């Protein structure tokens, strides 16, 4: 196949694979990911210690890393996330790779900064179940932690410093050297011919994925209802129900037989069941997929979009059956796999004071 024309790094002519009326439209590719500002190393070090520390939970067994496993793209590989012992969760764990680029957090967008976000799991009854003020009191009694706090923040442990340091650590969890990233920076040979075919489908009219998976992160950070089916166990199991209905109550909503998604935040009927478009770097490593982990593999996700998504009265008008043939589905999957690069191999430090 002829190499694709690379115009000013952003525009790509897609005359090659298609003929017909749409063929002449230029393909709009995102800008490459910018480099994030360097984080203060002392803060990152403290944040890493906190991230791996099980003492951030009520019973001393759950750290952030229990659900955001470093070797698994900082996700946890389960359909529905793990939970505080004896409880059950109700959503799938997000990968933490490239969270430093996001402005909108969680599947339903209920948090707007990493600092704010980090308080959620510590405090949550079904995640780490620890009163954050009690955490501050605990950390102040551990001299090694005191030292780390002074070095990183110029003073002893406070809630704000805990959250700042966790956020600084998370901002170092970056993937930006995937074949796709190298291609965006002008390395034409970084993608195979098949991956380039997939890229055309993704950003072009055949797949139209780029309507929502747009921008350098491959997410518009907006909310869309794809009609992803509810998991039956979330509706039938009393512990999953407890967690959902507790969450809804905390948001000021009555119990519901479904995940309301962005509706819990915006209260507009139209966004019932809408979720934030996930960024897609390293996506091959973070199966299963969707807010409830209900799709097991990339090929299932592609089949799902090929059918035009699931069933829901509120389903996005942007989804249409695509009629992709086997060849095109393969190419799209190869493209999704080209979004994998390397990321920091962080290990748990020795827990301070233990």
């Amino acid at each position, binding site marked *: 196949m002829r190499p694709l024309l690379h115009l000013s790094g952003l525009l790509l002519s897609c005359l090659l694979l298609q003929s017909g009326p749409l063929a002449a439209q230029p393909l709009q590719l995102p800008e490459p990911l910018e480099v994030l500002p360097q984080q203060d190393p002392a803060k990152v070090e403290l944040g890493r210690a906190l991230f791996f520390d*099980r003492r951030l939970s009520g019973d001393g067994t759950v750290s952030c890393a229990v659900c955001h496993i470093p070797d698994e793209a900082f996700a946890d590989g*389960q359909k529905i996330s793990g939970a505080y012992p004896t409880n059950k969760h109700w959503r799938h764990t997000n990968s933490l790779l490239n969270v430093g680029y996001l402005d909108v957090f969680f599947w339903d967008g209920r948090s707007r900064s990493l600092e704010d976000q980090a308080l959620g799991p510590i405090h949550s009854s079904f995640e780490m179940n620890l009163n954050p003020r009690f955490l501050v009191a605990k950390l102040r009694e551990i001299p090694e932690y005191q030292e780390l706090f002074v070095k990183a923040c110029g003073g002893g442990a406070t809630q704000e410093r805990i959250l700042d340091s966790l956020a600084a650590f998370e901002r170092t969890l970056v993937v930006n050297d995937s074949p796709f990233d190298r291609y965006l920076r002008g390395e034409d040979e970084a993608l195979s011919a098949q991956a380039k075919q997939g890229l055309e489908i993704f950003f072009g009219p055949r797949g139209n994925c780029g309507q929502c998976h747009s921008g350098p992160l491959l997410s518009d950070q907006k909310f869309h209802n794809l009609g992803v089916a509810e998991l039956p166990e979330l509706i039938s199991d009393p512990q999953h129900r407890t967690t959902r209905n507790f969450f809804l109550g905390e948001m000021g909503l009555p119990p519901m037989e479904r995940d309301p998604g962005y509706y819990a935040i915006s209260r507009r009927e139209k966004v019932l069941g809408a979720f934030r478009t996930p960024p897609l770097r390293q996506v091959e490593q973070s199966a299963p997929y969707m807010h409830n982990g209900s799709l097991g593999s990339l090929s299932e996700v592609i089949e799902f979009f090929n059918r035009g998504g699931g069933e829901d009265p509120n389903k996005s008008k942007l989804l249409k059956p695509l009629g992709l043939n086997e060849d095109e589905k393969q190419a799209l999957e190869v493209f999704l796999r080209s979004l994998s690069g390397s990321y920091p191999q962080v290990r748990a430090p020795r827990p301070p004071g233990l």
Partner: protein
Amino acid sequence: MRLVIKHYPYRYRDYSYLAAQAAEAARAQGKFWEYFDLMMHEKKLSRDDLIGYARQLNLDVERFSSELDSETHRPRVEADVDLARKLDFYQTPTFVINGRALVGGRPIEKFRELIDAALAESKGGGG
């Protein structure tokens, strides 16, 4: 291939240590798996429930109850808990396949992947 089960009773649950010891008391009479499956199925784990399961499986109930009450099998359960802590495992279930840990209830594909990898390795190693 060999499947080994280690106990990890959650330390703040009323019956989890008892249930782990009951499974060991059933093992002493050669019915670990039957007992384990029955417990997982029934889910109730009080002393009376546990003795009831022993009766259902035609175990020697007198021996079973006395071993349970005198905590005969507690050291074995505690040895498992110590091992888990040493390996830094705190979540149940945790699966270890040829040294690689899988925490939580994972999709079956993930098990296939690790088992296939382990099999390939053992072939490669000439074992």
